[in-house]
Each structure stands twice: as structure tokens, then as C-alpha cells.
């Protein structure tokens, strides 16, 4: 059907697009939360990466708790040293049997349930306890205080979980790879793609759609959008906009946390993963346009894909090191050409 060279480029391109999508999904989720917070509260949240990291460590914690082991001594068997054999079974398996081992295997997806309330509480506490006092303060101070908070959260996690990455396995059933190429009519086994990355992509799609639907189709969302447009007027109409914005902050924290939970099988979480993602997510927000939700999502996927294209060997041989800097380079170009970002609104954070 196609000439051979074309097939080769096609599967190379398809592979890079796919590779970029899951990373793009993570960027999009973090950037979405950042934009929500920025659009509603007008606060630049440098601690958002730390929320992503906390989410990932929710998964780690749940996994730890689930794998607490019950030690029983089996008198019928002996070890090589002649001592009675210790049988270690996680409590959850001992209590729930097969359902227990299922939960253990699927600990990452189950962490979602665990992470939602935790992240919501963390987000609301953060907003009420700290961010609230910074609405009227200059942006520089907002940046600085959230930056300090990010360091504190990061160091706390480091002192609890240690400095090394803690690998989290994906569920057994989803740890293989799918032969995507065959699906698109390409020869078998040329384009393979891990199942978990597909899950992540689908998951980020669902979360993004959920957030948009929430803002678009519920009364609560309508009020929030109105508040983003003109906070004072909404307040004058007798709506307690502050309380709603607090909940929005909690929601943004949950979104970042879930992005972190589901990302753990792709990248073993360590304490500084949040900062690594934060810098990139800021770039994503700026490229997408401060305060534009759609822009944040689009820019997240766009930059994810471009980054994975830049890490192709063919591209690297032409521009060495391009994979390291492509995102920043694009941000610089975009900011100079379109100062408001791709979909930025007029009047939001002009300057």
C-alpha cells in the first residue's frame, strides 16, 4: 500500500506522537490546575509541582500500607538452616483472599480513591492557611511564599520516604505493551506502546473532560467561571465567591495529585519530581496563555509531543541537545511572537 520508506517514517512519527501524549497528559493536568488557580485566585502557585509529587507519594503510601505483612510460622516446612519457615503474607491477602491480592496488584489505581480526599484536604488547608493571606500581596511575594512551601513539602517527603526513587509497579495485566502499529495497518511489532501509558492518556483525557464538564455544566462551575471573569461583581450579587474559590483550589490540588498517582508506574517517584515537572508546567501555562484552560491543555499535549520528537535520534543528529531545550526554546519564541500565549485572554496578567 505504501512504499517502504514512507512506512518507516510513518511508524516513527506515530511512535513519537504516542510517546509524547502521555507526558503531555501529565503536563496538561498540572498546567490545568495551575491555570485554574491562577484564573480564579490570581495566585501564581509555585507549590503546584509539590502537589503532583504528594499525589505520587499517596500511591507509595497506600502500597506500603497494603503490603504490611503478617508473619506466620509454618511448622511443617524448614528452611535450609533448619529453622521453621516463616510465611509472609500481606494482611490484606490474609483477610480478603483473592480480592486482597487483586487490590494489592491494582494498588496504583486504588490509590486514586485514597488520594482524592487527602489531596482535597491538603489543597483546602493550603488555601485557607496560607494562600488566602496573599491575595492582596504582590505577585513576587506570592511566588516566593509558594516557592518556600514547595521546598518545605519536598523536604518533608524526603525525610519520610528517603531520597531514592521508589518504583511502583503497574498492575500485572497492564504492564505489557500493545502493538499499536498493527491497528493502523502498519507491519506488526514496529510500533509498540505500553498499556499503562495508554491508560494514563485515557485517564488524563477523562480528568480533563471531567473538569471542563464541571465548569461548563454545573451551577457551581458557572459561578466559578463568572468569578474568573469578574470576581467583584459576583461577590456583589451576594455569592460567597471566596468559599467557592477555596473549593476550586482543592479541586486543582486533586487534579495535580491524581496526575501524580497515575504517573508513578511510568516514573518512579522521588522527592524532587514535583519541581522537575513544575518548571515545565509553568512553561506550558505560559505557552498556552495565562488563565486559559483550553490553552493549558492544548499546550501540554503539544509540548509533550514536540519533546518526544526532539528526542528522536534523527533530529538529535542535526541539532545536538535539542531534546533538552526544545520546550524552553518554544516558550521563548511563543512569548516573543504571541505575548499572551497561544490562547491567552486580553487583560489577564498583561505585561
Amino acid at each position, binding site marked *: 500500500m505504501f512504499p517502504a520508506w514512507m512506512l518507516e517514517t510513518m511508524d516513527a512519527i506515530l511512535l513519537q506522537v504516542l510517546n509524547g501524549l502521555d507526558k503531555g497528559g501529565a503536563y496538561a493536568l498540572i498546567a490545568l490546575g495551575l491555570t485554574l488557580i491562577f484564573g480564579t485566585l490570581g495566585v*501564581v502557585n509555585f507549590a503546584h509541582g509539590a502537589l503532583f509529587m504528594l499525589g505520587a507519594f499517596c500511591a507509595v503510601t497506600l502500597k506500603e500500607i497494603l503490603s504490611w505483612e503478617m508473619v506466620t510460622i509454618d511448622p511443617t516446612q524448614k528452611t535450609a538452616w533448619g529453622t521453621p519457615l516463616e510465611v509472609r503474607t500481606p494482611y490484606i491477602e490474609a483477610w480478603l483472599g483473592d480480592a486482597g491480592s487483586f487490590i494489592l496488584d491494582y494498588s496504583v489505581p486504588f490509590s486514586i480513591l485514597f488520594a482524592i480526599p487527602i489531596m482535597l484536604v491538603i489543597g483546602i488547608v493550603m488555601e485557607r492557611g*496560607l494562600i488566602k*493571606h496573599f491575595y492582596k*500581596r*504582590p*505577585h*513576587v*511575594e506570592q*511566588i*516566593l*511564599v509558594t*516557592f*518556600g*512551601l*514547595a*521546598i*518545605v513539602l*519536598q*523536604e*518533608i517527603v*524526603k*525525610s519520610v520516604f528517603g531520597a531514592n526513587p521508589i518504583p511502583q509497579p503497574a498492575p500485572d495485566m497492564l504492564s505489557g505493551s500493545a502493538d499499536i502499529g498493527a491497528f493502523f495497518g502498519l507491519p506488526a511489532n514496529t510500533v509498540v506502546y505500553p498499556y499503562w501509558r495508554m491508560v494514563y492518556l485515557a485517564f488524563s483525557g477523562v480528568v480533563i473532560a471531567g473538569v471542563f464538564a464541571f465548569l461548563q455544566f454545573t451551577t457551581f462551575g458557572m459561578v466559578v467561571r463568572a468569578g474568573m471573569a469578574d470576581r467583584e461583581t459576583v461577590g456583589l450579587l451576594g455569592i460567597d465567591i471566596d468559599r467557592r474559590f477555596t473549593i476550586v483550589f482543592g479541586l486543582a490540588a486533586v487534579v495535580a495529585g491524581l496526575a501524580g498517582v497515575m504517573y508513578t508506574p511510568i516514573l518512579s517517584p522521588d522527592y524532587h519530581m514535583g*519541581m522537575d515537572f513544575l*518548571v515545565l508546567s*509553568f*512553561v506550558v501555562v*505560559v505557552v498556552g496563555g*495565562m488563565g486559559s484552560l483550553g490553552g493549558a491543555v492544548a499546550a501540554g499535549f503539544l509540548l509533550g509531543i514536540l519533546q518526544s520528537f526532539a528526542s528522536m535520534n534523527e533530529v538529535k543528529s542535526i541539532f*545536538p*541537545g535539542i531534546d*533538552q*531545550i526544545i*520546550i*524552553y*526554546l518554544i*516558550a*521563548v519564541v511563543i*512569548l*516573543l511572537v504571541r*505575548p499572551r500565549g497561544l490562547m491567552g485572554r486580553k487583560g489577564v*496578567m498583561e*505585561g
Partner: protein
Amino acid sequence: MVKAFKRHSDTILMLVFIAAVLAGPVILEPVGAGYPDLLQKFAIYGIFALGFNILLGLTGYLSFGHAAFLGVGSYTTVWTFKLLSMNPLPALVFSILAAGLFSLLIGWISLRRTGIYFSILTLAFAQMCYNLAYSVLTPITNGETGLQLSQSDPRVLDTAFGRDYGAVLPASDLFGIEMTGYPGFYFCGVLLIICFYIALRIFRSPFGLMLLGVKSNQNRMNYTGLNTRPYALAAFVISGMYAGLAGGLLAVTDPLAGAERMQWTASGEVVLMTILGGAGTLLGPVIGAGVIKYAENIFSAFNEGTLQSAFSFLPEPLQHIAVSITGLFVGEGWHLTLGMLFMVIVIFLPGGLMEGVNRIINLFRRSSGGGGEGTAETAPQPAE
């Protein structure tokens, strides 16, 4: 008359500063900071923060990428050592020039935007430099290992003047005085004094006032028909050159340059120093740099053993609890203390330590029933 007083007060400030720096080893002896390695750090980071303050304190632009200039300065110095001479003077001149050029380029682009966009642009540039230094530029930066001197370096000028360092790795020396220990400190200290003097002159000059105008209301400045960007760019380049000098000095006192010096955490550190001391004040950043480097040194040196002996007056179980709680904040966990300090300062004392001092002075004056002129507004303006 007021003017005359002001001029005098500057002279006094300068004299006190010179005396404090030169007598540093003696003054800081009682707090256990009177040894050259730490004093060198005080002076070097003092220069770094002084320069950063010219940008943040005067123009209100918050750069998150100044570590890149520090790194450029270090690399340039080590390369000059390798190629030309172990004398620090040419190395520092080249470092300042390189960092200046670099900051001219980055500033020219970044200053097209203000506020948060500016911060993110500088952050992006610094991360870009860091990533490049780690990957593609390995032939220049020696990647993860860091750039080091080696015995086979050409050192053209040194060979031309017949200096031979033999089979040992040379230390940097200024016409025969090795730049380690106290001579190293005094070299940095003299440069710190010069930098402080330049900063003082900038603060008092019409140029400095113009920068303050940019900070307080850039739009209004533009409406008066003035193009503010060259002024902001000049401030950016000057602060970049300060950073280059500081980076160069780091490499002079310890001839080694690594990419981690360019990481954004290093940029965050200089922001913290400036804020802690008081952005926009003259002395603040130097004090902030000193406090942070001192605290880093003290806190990170603590370990479980010292903690246990510190809490040995408590009964056993209490001692255990106290040790494990404080253990979080010292040694490896020193960054936690730093982060907390950072938050506390931004929340309660946005003007930094200098504002705290001013507040105390004002309180004192008011309580002693002083005249109205004593309570003049001294609070620094918030950055925009």
C-alpha cells in the same frame, strides 16, 4: 544641610562596611565563623546578592535565572586558568565579561515581558543552560564530573613567564600569593568592598532613581516619554556581571566548576538571601547572604551525636524525642529549615531583616517619645 548629612552618612556607612569586612575574621570569631573558607563564602555570596539586589531591589524584576550567570562565571574562570594563567585577575575579567555578554543576550529577550512572565522566562533560560551544560556542552563543561584543572593544561601566560607548577595541581595565585585561606578571603573581601561601593553609587545616582521609577510605576515612566527598557536591561546586565564575578571567585578559591551551580535551586538561594536581608536596601543582601551561608554551615554540620549531647540534660525518653524532632531540621534536613525560614520571612517580614531592624528602631524611638521626624516612613516599597 540634609544633603550634606546624607553624603556624610554614606561615607560613614562605607567606612563601617570596610572596617567590618576587613575585621571579619576577628568579629566573627566568637560565633565560630572566623575561618577563611566560610568567610570567603560570605564575601562571594555577598557579591552575588548585592548584584541581584540591583535588579530586584531597584527595578522590582524577579529573576529566577541568575544562577546561570554564576555558572558562566565559574566556567570562564576555570577555562582561563587552564588556557592562560593561574592569576585570578585575567580570569575574573573574562568571567565578568562573559557573564555580562550572556546576561545582555538573556536580558534583551526576557525584558520584553514583565512580572511573572519575566520570572518564567529567566527560569526557562537558566534551565536551558543547565540542561545544555549537562548534555551537549560536555566538551566545554565536562558534564557531570565538572570542569577541573589538570597538569597538562597549556597555561600559555604562565609558561611564557617561566612559571612551572611541577607535578602538583596548581592553586590560583595572585603574583605569588595563593588564593586560599586568609589571603583568599581578603582578595574576595576587597572585591566585595569595591562591589558595595559601586552598588552604593548606583543606588544614589540618577540612574538608580530611574530604576526605582521603573519599579514603582513603569506605565507612568513610559507615559512621560521615556523608554524604560534600556534602564532595566542595564540593571540586568550589571547584576549579571556581579553574578559572573561571584561565580569566578567561587572558582578562584576552589578551581572547580560544575553544572549544579546553574540549577534553579541556586537561583532560588540568591533570591532568598536578598529577600531575607531586605530587597532594596544596601546592606540587607550582604547580611542575608552571610546569615544563610552561616546557618547552612552550622545546621548542616550537626549530626545525631552532637544533638544527643546537646539534649543530654533531658531524661532519656525526652532526649530521644527531642533528637528525632530536631534531627529533621539539621544535617541533611537543613533545606527544610531553609524553606521554613523563607516562608516565615515572606509572610511576616516581606522587607527582610533590615525592615525588622527599622521597625525595632522606630518602636524604640516612639516609646522614648521622640519628635515627629524620627518616625519617617522607612518601609521599603513592595516589589511589583
